[in-house]
């Protein structure tokens, strides 16, 4: 009878259990691996043969068939090596094997020298193991920490195949490998802090608003005025990630093979800044394996698109659906994976082709400026609740004393406003911040006092705003009020929100048809 050993395969950010069945059939020596496997799995044949031999075992001199069940789902990755080696040993009775093996699962790549190598996606695999009721997981030493992030599971880590086998045979007892002790400080921003940003008080106010209400934002400014500097610091004032959020982010990075410090939860909110020549697949996700893109890598964090006008129009428009749904499904011929992508979009661009619009040196005509700005489609612009100018700072002021406000102080305000929103939206699963409010919710939560209403009407007449823009203002005004803990939208909240869209106001004043 064929031996059965448990392992896992990845689908998107989740793993599902796979049974590795091994049987030895009579016939000429050959190894055949089936079960809709990709090249990486198929190549395991060579690795497993070499590793068994090096570890002092015998590879069966007959036809060996290995089946990865369920057999109708495409599987990839080199982490099946360990399970296959154990399966072969079990079937050829070189592993005395016992009943307890059905409570074990395996994930690890083998080297030709029979050592165990780490593999991506161990975190979701450990989660899948726990969910499937498998109590024991065997991984490589490097993956130990990552797998241990999931509670309710015994994780065993080894360095060589021989050690695994002697443990399973009950010949040696398990001794956990030495680990560098000490958890990292929970967040690591290096030296990034808003106190280095000076002379941008007005902008900072709106950055806080964006962070507090989850509003997407566009920064306009001449080259070198500090747009990127500001953007890089936005994650430092977003609320701390909850355990669940951190786990989500770590899972995505694990699957993408981007966990730099294996086994540590990612606690700092991600900040991704893809270059503007990024392809649609790089941004949204894709490739033959339908892997995660930049939007998923910035899940629970900030996606910063610098020079957003230089991105391909199609690439940008592909952002529309993920921005709405906060989740993206990548479909390829052989794969279809879903990834979460709840990110805050921060973008920056020059206000005109030369970059100095409104300054003495700018010679761009309004028609050129408009053409340049139209590189951003209406629907994308529409999703930016806040569009602010970043004013060039007088560098003589910069050398002076008096720092800006520190990130810690700003974050406190953000957390306060978020708390208000949590209370408001308690019991409503689809919404967590003001920016996500739907039209009926705006109606319910953004009641206006007379003075505020009058102000909005004035703006409406003066700048010919659309009804859609109207909602945007209310959402932003809601966040302004939340920052002060005010239950109602006051006149000043409305006034401040009306100043949140510099570009719209400016375009109303342009001399164009």
């Amino acid at each position, binding site marked *: 009878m064929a031996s059965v050993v448990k392992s896992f395969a990845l689908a998107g950010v989740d793993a599902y259990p796979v049974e590795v069945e091994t049987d030895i059939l009579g016939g000429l020596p050959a190894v055949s691996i089936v079960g809709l496997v990709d090249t990486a799995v198929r190549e395991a044949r060579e690795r497993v043969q070499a590793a068994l031999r090096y570890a002092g075992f015998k590879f069966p001199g007959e036809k060996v068939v290995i089946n990865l069940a369920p057999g109708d789902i495409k599987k990839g990755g080199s982490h099946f090596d360990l399970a296959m080696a154990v399966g072969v040993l079990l079937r050829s009775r070189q592993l005395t094997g016992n009943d307890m093996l059905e409570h074990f699962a395996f994930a690890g790549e083998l080297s030709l020298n029979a050592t165990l190598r780490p593999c991506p996606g161990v975190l979701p695999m450990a989660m899948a193991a726990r969910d499937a009721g498998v109590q024991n997981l065997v991984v490589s030493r490097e993956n130990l920490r990552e797998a241990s992030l999931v509670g309710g599971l015994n994780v065993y880590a080894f360095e060589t195949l021989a050690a695994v086998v002697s443990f399973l045979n009950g010949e040696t007892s398990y001794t956990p490998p030495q680990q560098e002790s000490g958890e990292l400080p929970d967040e690591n921003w290096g030296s990034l802090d808003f106190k280095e940003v000076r002379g941008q008080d007005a902008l900072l106010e709106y950055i806080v608003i964006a962070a507090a209400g989850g509003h997407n934002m566009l920064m306009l400014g001449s080259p070198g005025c500090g747009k990127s500097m500001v953007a890089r610091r936005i994650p430092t004032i977003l609320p701390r990630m909850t355990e669940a959020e951190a786990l989500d982010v770590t899972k995505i990075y694990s699957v993408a093979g981007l966990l730099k410090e294996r086994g540590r939860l990612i606690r700092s909110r991600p900040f991704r800044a893809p270059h503007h020549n990024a392809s649609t697949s790089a941004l949204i996700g894709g490739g033959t394996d339908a892997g995660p893109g930049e939007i998923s890598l910035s899940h629970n964090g900030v996606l910063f698109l610098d020079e957003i006008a230089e991105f391909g129009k199609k690439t940008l428009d592909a952002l529309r659906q993920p921005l709405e749904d906060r989740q993206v499904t990548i479909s390829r011929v052989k794969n279809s994976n879903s990834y979460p992508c709840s990110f805050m979009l921060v973008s920056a661009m020059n206000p005109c082709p030369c970059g*100095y619009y*409104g300054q003495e040196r700018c010679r761009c005509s309004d028609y050129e400026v408009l053409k340049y700005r139209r590189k951003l489609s209406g629907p994308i612009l529409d999703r930016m609740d806040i569009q602010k100018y970043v*004013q060039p700072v007088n560098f003589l002021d910069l050398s002076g004393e008096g720092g800006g406000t520190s990130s810690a102080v700003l974050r406190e305000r953000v957390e306060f406003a978020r708390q208000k929103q949590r209370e408001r939206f308690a019991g409503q699963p689809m919404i967590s911040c003001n920016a996500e409010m739907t039209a009926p919710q705006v109606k319910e939560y953004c009641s206006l006092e007379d003075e505020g209403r009058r102000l909005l009407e004035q703006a409406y007449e003066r700048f010919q705003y659309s009804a859609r823009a109207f909602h945007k203002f209310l959402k932003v005004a809601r966040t302004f009020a939340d920052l002060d803990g005010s239950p109602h939208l006051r006149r*000043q909240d409305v*006034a401040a929100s009306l100043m949140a869209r510099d570009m719209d106001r400016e375009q109303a*004043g*342009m*001399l*164009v048809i």
Partner: protein
Amino acid sequence: MEIYWLWLSMLPGVGALLQKKLLQRFGSPVDIYHAGEGELLSIEGMGKTLTQRVLAARSLDGAARVQEKMQKSGIRLLVLSDPLYPDMVKSLAEAPAVLYYRGTLHGQSCGVGIVGARRCTAYGKEVAREAAAFLAKQGIPVISGMARGIDSYANTACLQAGGYTLAFLGHGVDICFPADHRELMEAIVEHGAVLSAYPPGTEARPEFFPQRNYLISAWSYRLLVVEAAQKSGSLITANLAKQQGRPVFAVPDNIYKRQSAGTNGLIADGVAHIYLQPRQLLGEVEQVAAAANGEVSAALAEKDAGGIAAASLTAAQGKTLPQADHGSLPATEREILSLLIDAGAPRSPEELAAHFSGEKKLFWETLAVMVLEGKVDNLAGGRVRPCAAFVQ
């Protein structure tokens, strides 16, 4: 008949002057077409070779092709004998025999020309906007060239103020150059006309522009030059206008600025009058023209020119201005206003906030309200300045 006009305009080696002579002698293009060798030779300027070339070019195929294109793109022909062809232009020696146009031509299509630099400054833009809007309110057509910068601003501001505008092009009227002006061009066609001496399909070329400049000045009673560098197309237009006997006005500017060397020079050389306010662009003829266009009421026309101008100046600015009375404003608004006025030039709000005595939050709130109420103008680049009523 039209086809013979086209044929005449396409004759090789026969320019505007010779066309005129031929028309004078034969009366109409059909007769020129049927003229014999002897008759042609009798005209001064028609040499032997040229006559042979004209006789050899008897085919109407080329003209028919152009006619087909015109039909496709809704292009019409304005020929010298057309009553819509202004007498003021007709009398000029180099007025072309045919012009292609899209849009509507009025009986009184001549107006005031506004030309200037493509790479203009905010100052030039403001002057062009004010002048064009003023003329539009007076019912005077604005004549320009739909080029980047001042030209397009003049056309645009006129249309925005509900006026009638003409744009003369250095290429076929079915082509939009620069391409960013597509919407502007369509708006001009709808509320005015685009005209060109070049047949449809002709791409823009530098050597075509002097001809178009000639037409701009020809169609203008007066010409306003806003920002022109030395050796610019606008200077050519100014000199042509001078030759055609049109009064030229130039906008004075910073003497150190390269863009203004041309206009300042025009003033220094006495070619142009110094331009200080839009009402200078009103002459007697224009008022008659305006009255004919029915845009100015009889009552207004009876008043003296200065009165009309003053009355319309405020109208041209369009907005209902708040009372320019600082005293009646709340204290915060008064402080912000005086900060703005002291600054002298448009400033970024951040700069002003640094000088504000009260709480920052109050500053932002008040400024927002002032922008919405029109007390403060929002300018390009996020800058602000006090609205006009508070500056005087």
